[in-house]
């Protein structure tokens, strides 16, 4: 139930009167109306994490890449540490 899916904000309608801040969010081609009241900083083009119709967080694109930077560093270390294993199979 705590699943949340990232999608790209396509448009934003600021809440007026009794309306809540909302917008259309694109989930890999499927558009859905999402409440953006909890992400006042979200603008068109941002990726937001959406749970039961509510954006809970704006995805930080820089942070999203960090795991891959760590993995690249790890791979370089592995190559330095195990030069003799290259090309060999090991269990």
């Amino acid at each position: 139930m705590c699943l949340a899916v990232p999608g790209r904000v396509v448009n934003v309608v600021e809440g007026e009167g009794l309306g809540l801040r909302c917008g259309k969010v694109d989930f890999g081609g499927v558009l859905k109306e999402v409440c953006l009241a909890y992400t006042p900083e979200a603008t068109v083009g941002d990726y937001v994490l959406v749970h039961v119709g509510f954006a809970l967080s704006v995805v930080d694109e820089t942070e999203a890449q960090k795991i891959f930077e760590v993995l690249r560093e790890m791979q370089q270390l592995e190559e330095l540490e195990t030069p003799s294993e290259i090309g060999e199979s090991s269990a």
Partner: protein
Amino acid sequence: MKFLDEYRDSTAAAQLSRSIRRITTRPWTLMEVCGGQTHTIVKSGLEDLLPPEITLVHGPGCPVCVTPVELIDRAIAIAARPETIFCSFGDMLRVPGSSKSLLDVKAAGGDVRIVYSPLDAVRLARTNLSREVVFFAVGFETTAPANAMAVWQAEREGIRNFSILVAHVLVPPAMEAILNSPNCRIHGFLAAGHVCTVMGWKEYEPISQRWHVPIVVTGFEPLDLLEGVQMAVAQLESGRAEVENQYRRAVRREGNRPAQERIAEVFEVAPRKWRGIGEIPLSGLRLRARYRAFDAEQRFEVGVGTVEEPSECIAGIVLQGLKKPFECPAFGTRCTPETPLGAPMVSSEGACAAYYLYGKRKHEGSKSELPGAAARG
């Protein structure tokens, strides 16, 4: 899809797997708190990528599983009333109450509807003024902002025919209850990432310090979970016990302030009974006095007493990570998703359903590497 597919890459998973093997010297038991994480682990076979020293046990983070049977009976009684439109997330419909489920009520002609968002239920109330629209507000902190907003919005618009049946639970008190148990064998936690998008991780810091356990806020994709395991094991191997954030792209330490404020305005912390576990002090939410008019338990007088659980179901033990689903004698025989004895076999987040669906019916004994993990060099 961006921010999903790249976190399912098998080459990167193999690399993380090697890294975990390299740093692991002793046996460690980690609990992933959220049922969504359990499903990723079982579906992707992540346990096969871990060294034999690492055991993952599955936590209580399945709201459908921990909703007490009395509350389901109450939902069923309210849903069966002719004036009611009863709205729920789909997961709740097949969960067995003491004698039937919400799906049985629907089959017997009750107006039970699956909605995507609690705001859909508010919309139904707006357009069905002669009916009572009730939303089954089940969930952890992740779902609380949505349910709080639905009530807040209904009050603002003066919608009187809307109410919610509250079954909200909180993660930190459940983690403390598990750590307090004399049978506890957990060395570290992978905390539920989406709960933390809302609440941040400040409230986990005293837990980590008091019990000296690493707590790593972790995402839901295979690479997230493997990195979460790696971070927790690195802490354990070096004797550290801190709160760390693996789910950096989505979670900040302070969480989502506007969401926390709306939750605090509409709800207050209260004791809650957890199905299979019992009452945990200050482990749930109820509507504040100001919003009590939206409380379905107050609006509809439905007497439901204490209910005995089927004795064969060991859901409570599974939810505390003390046993794996396949250790239950009824698993896959007398208890299946079609004829469940307990909620963890029903919910898409339940550990029993995950093991059943992905064919993990018994412990394989020795752990084997997946093809993706075997390639080195």
